């Protein structure tokens, strides 16, 4: 079971779109995939039309009093399941803080799913906190959606700096550019200077697309309603590249 987390310190960069669309592509290719919606806003749950609520809340889960298994819901797509968000996730940090080894909790919980899935996608809320440390420990690679703007690059630098000091050494960080608008000079310039990034970005870029915005109207992954769109196509190539990277590690 490979575990990926879609993560960025900054909000609104396309983390949830990446988790939902990449997991959809993986499942379409025959893999068994699970998305865990860790964001209390529950956007991933919303996209899959699943109520953002977990029985017993986050606290019981973190305290080891309830298991992940019964909380999992099948989506409308074969091979793709979701662990819904819960509003109590906003207190995840506080809940973790009350435990003995907060950074290990997530990894321990995920052990129960070993063998059930080929790929796990943790859709993380923005920010850097105790919860994100737990994610870093649990996952194999961070997928970091990055808009080609100076502010986005700055947070990428921040993340690199943070991980260098406190991150687990084996953790891979795979940034990729998304919401790319080739008409914008700024975007083009940043893409041309991608070698200056603190870590190499994936080749594939996800274009800015109105279809991605429409995911909220269709409440479904891109591929299910705009299979031929450039954005859907880019998520398919992105997944291919991620798999190659995961294999190489």
């Amino acid at each position: 079971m490979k575990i990926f987390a879609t993560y960025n310190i900054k909000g609104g960069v396309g983390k949830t779109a990446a988790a939902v669309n990449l997991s959809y592509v993986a499942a379409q290719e025959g893999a068994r995939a699970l998305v865990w919606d860790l964001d209390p806003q529950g956007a991933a749950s919303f996209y899959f039309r699943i109520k953002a609520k977990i029985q017993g809340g986050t606290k019981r889960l973190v305290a080891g009093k309830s298991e992940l298994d019964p909380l999992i819901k099948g989506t409308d797509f074969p091979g793709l399941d979701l662990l819904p968000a819960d509003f109590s996730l906003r207190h995840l940090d506080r809940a973790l803080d009350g435990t003995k080894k907060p950074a290990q909790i997530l990894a321990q919980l995920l052990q129960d799913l070993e063998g059930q899935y080929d790929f796990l996608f943790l859709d993380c809320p923005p920010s850097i906190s105790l919860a994100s440390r737990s994610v870093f420990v649990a996952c194999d690679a961070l997928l970091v959606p990055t808009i080609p703007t100076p502010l986005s690059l700055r947070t990428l630098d921040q993340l690199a700096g943070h991980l260098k000091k406190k991150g687990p050494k084996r953790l891979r960080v795979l940034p990729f550019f998304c919401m790319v608008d080739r008409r914008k000079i700024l975007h083009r310039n940043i893409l041309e200077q991608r070698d200056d990034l603190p870590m190499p970005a994936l080749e594939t870029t996800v274009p800015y697309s109105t279809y991605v915005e429409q995911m909220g109207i269709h409440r479904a992954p891109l591929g299910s309603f705009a299979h031929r769109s450039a954005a859907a196509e880019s998520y398919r190539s992105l997944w291919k590249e991620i798999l190659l990277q995961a294999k190489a590690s």
Partner: protein
Amino acid sequence: MTHCSTEYVLPSGAKAEVFLTELEDQVVLSQPETSQENRFFVDTFDRRIQRLGGSLWWQRQKDGVRLFWRSAPGQRPSSWPLQDCPTFASALPKGSLRTALEPVIQMRRLLPLVEVRLKASVFRVLDRRQKTVAYLHWVQSQAVLPRDTAGRGKRRWDLTDRFAIEEIRGYSKKFQRLTRLLGAAGLRPAETTQLEAALAAAGCSQGSKSSKLQLELSARQPAEEALQQIFLHLLSVLEVNEAGVRSDLDSEFLHEFRVAVRRTRAALTQVRGVFPATVVERFRQEFSWLGKVSGPTRDLDVYLLKMPTYEEHLPPSIRADLEPLRHHLRGRQRREQKRLTRALASPRYRSIKKDWRQELESKRPSGESPPNALMPISKVAAKRIWKAYKKVFTRGSAIHRDTPAEALHDLRIDCKKLRYLLEFFRSLFAPQPIASLIRDLKKLQDTLGDFNDFEVQRDQLSQYADEMTSEGSAPASTLLAMGRLLALLEEWQHRERLGFHPRFEAFSKSRPVAQKLFRGENRS
């Protein structure tokens, strides 16, 4: 992460459309997605796959076919793309499927069983977020049999519609509610699989008659009647396999055919005084002819079946050298098969079947019965078995390390006769001791059979070498490889010979049991 519920069928007379309309008052259903499939089920003549509990079928697709395997009812099928529908186990895709099925199918051909044409409609059951919480499957189907050799055209039968609910993980309550709704509408779990239903509709649920004798005789039955029952069963086995022998579908048809012939001969000659001597003599000769006329084809079949094993035991570098031999064997097999087919088309064969059946189905006028005809079968059987047993025992005990091979061959024939007698009449005796007696005898027979087979194969191999040399079809490398094979056969035969004594010893331990079973019966 989903699983399908049991399949449900509507109560008789109910209409699927009406049920669906009523269901829509209770739950929200999406527009159905429909698909059509023509499933061509295959199995061996003796239904080995069905007996295994699985089902194997193929469907046409672009550039070939797709093969499906369902290991048990309710399981999700696995599938593989293939160029063509498979006819033998060797044509199955390599991997788990072939590993599972090759030992079961063995040398048998996969024959078309029945075609099931189905139209599947899948409804999504939606909640108020329009989220799918379960799938409802509605399957309408037909069983289709193709045109057959008897000149009957394509035939179709409508099968009962089936419904199934597919559960989605995390929505078990919705699943349970749907199950309740189906029950309330009068739907009942289907008692048969789709394939079973199709076979039943098409009138072919029963597989072929197995050559296995599962006769229920009763101890007081007159010997004549019991034997008629046995002979009629054997005759039907013969007839059932005849078409397969003629068209050489696979080697097993001829094997079963010949077993029925041999058993008939054994029963004729071993159980005396039940049928008139003239009848016994005529049919002994006729069945002996059938045995003879089918022998060469069978020998060649056996050789061809064993070729892969032989090659495995030769060094890889010379395996290809045996190819001319294989070619030669195939050519001869085809010629012998033609000869056999002609024999089966002859008036002689037709009258054997006709007259024999007439003989078995007619009742002899009273007063003309031979001495043992009206004796209870248990007495006649026990007497014959005990006699045959003693013969095997005496002959076997006389075999030493230096006894010539002929003595082992004679013993092999005696064992065969004893085995047939035990199998014909096993229902008359206590099941457990008979079963263990047969088991020990079978082990002894295996050793003797292999010993004999290796001898026969050695002789034949020399004969083939002569034939091939005179035809000029054997390069030196092939003859050398055949020489290696000859040495191998000799070695194996020697090994069997060494195995004889322990096997015979195990068998002779059964003497007190046999004595009690068969001699005790005689005395009473």
